């Protein structure tokens, strides 16, 4: 193969492309350590800011570690990570529990509040996490449906997880369950300045709070803290 001027031009193009990739993509490669979000370091955040008396906890209530999740029932990534988070908590042998907060960052997730209210109504009967798992299963179904159809789907879920249906529907109609949902959103937006779901925080034994970017970083955090996997 002769080194013609055309090959030289192609070689230059190739070198420029490789250099562009090296300067743009390589710096964004993930490190092995969870990366703290800057604003968390600047905020005097306490465990009590993230976990209140009415916060939904999955797993051992007295676990030394807590994974706090801000999630939205209409967010596809939240649905995607949910079973894996459940598994991480189950495998932790009581060392890690999970706290759930509602957060709706996207206005086009039109049923988020309706679904969150359903989970809160189930929580009144002690079945928040059962409803939580079921609501993610109907995520694709509710996307295009009007509110009344979504209500029917929610009632079906309530039957499936053996809730007292009359009590469930009465709770749904009451104003009482608006507050925890709104409080979660205020916490996410005003104090934590979150912009997306799912958002994660790890609370360590010492009470130190670690912002965690994604599922891969949760696994790294779990490993680093010596939590059974």
């Amino acid at each position: 193969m002769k080194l013609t001027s055309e090959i030289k031009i192609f070689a230059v193009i190739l070198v420029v492309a490789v250099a562009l990739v090296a300067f743009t993509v390589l710096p964004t490669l993930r490190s092995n350590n969870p990366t703290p979000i800057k604003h968390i370091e600047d905020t005097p955040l306490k465990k009590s800011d993230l976990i209140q008396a009415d916060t939904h906890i999955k797993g051992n209530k007295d676990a030394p570690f807590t994974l706090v999740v801000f999630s939205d029932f209409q967010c596809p990534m939240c649905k995607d990570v949910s079973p894996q988070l459940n598994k991480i908590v189950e495998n932790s042998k009581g060392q890690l529990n999970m706290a759930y907060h509602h957060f709706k960052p996207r206005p086009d997730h039109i049923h988020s509040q309706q679904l969150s209210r359903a989970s809160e109504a189930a929580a009144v009967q002690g079945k928040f996490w059962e409803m939580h798992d079921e609501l993610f299963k109907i995520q694709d179904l509710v996307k295009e449906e009007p509110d009344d159809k979504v209500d029917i789907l929610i009632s079906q879920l309530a039957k499936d997880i053996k809730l007292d249906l009359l009590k469930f529907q009465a709770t749904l109609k009451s104003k009482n369950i608006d507050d925890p949902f709104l409080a979660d959103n205020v916490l996410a937006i005003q104090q934590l300045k979150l912009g997306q779901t799912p958002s994660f925080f790890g609370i360590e034994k010492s009470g130190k709070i670690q912002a965690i970017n994604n599922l891969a970083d949760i696994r790294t955090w779990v490993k680093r803290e010596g939590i059974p996997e």
Partner: protein
Amino acid sequence: MTRALANRIMFILSLAGFCDSLYLTMAHAQLVELKCGPSHGCEEVAHSAAAMGMGIPFLSNIPTAAFGILMYLALAAGAFLRAATDNEVIHDRVSKFQWAISLVSVLASGYLTYLEAYVIHAWCRYCVVSAIIILIHFIFASIDRSMARKSNISASIVEGEIS
């Protein structure tokens, strides 16, 4: 516009498309963070059925972006081969190969764009960029084929006149 220039442009487009697909595949493997902007559209697309095997069940173990890597790599290799050889037969065959691959890719990309618009109802900026790249590539591949046909006809006429 010469055929050499068209080939250079196709090479640049293939590399751009390759980088785009590589980024999406790396994001799928959680090696890089997928930067979606405020709309989060690419997150929705990245977690839809179409993100794996182009939504085709028996290909569902392979990320859709990985097909893009293979396709752009083939197109870039074809453009490089044309630059590296003076053999007219190879030139012509590779040119047809580039056109055919980009046609298939435009159709696949059109299907994925349809899924974004009417099934997923979310737009992935990186997928849209790839769709635009392959469409422009196809236009240049078609111009290149058109110029090849014209030069073949001219050559036949010249040969006919000589004989």
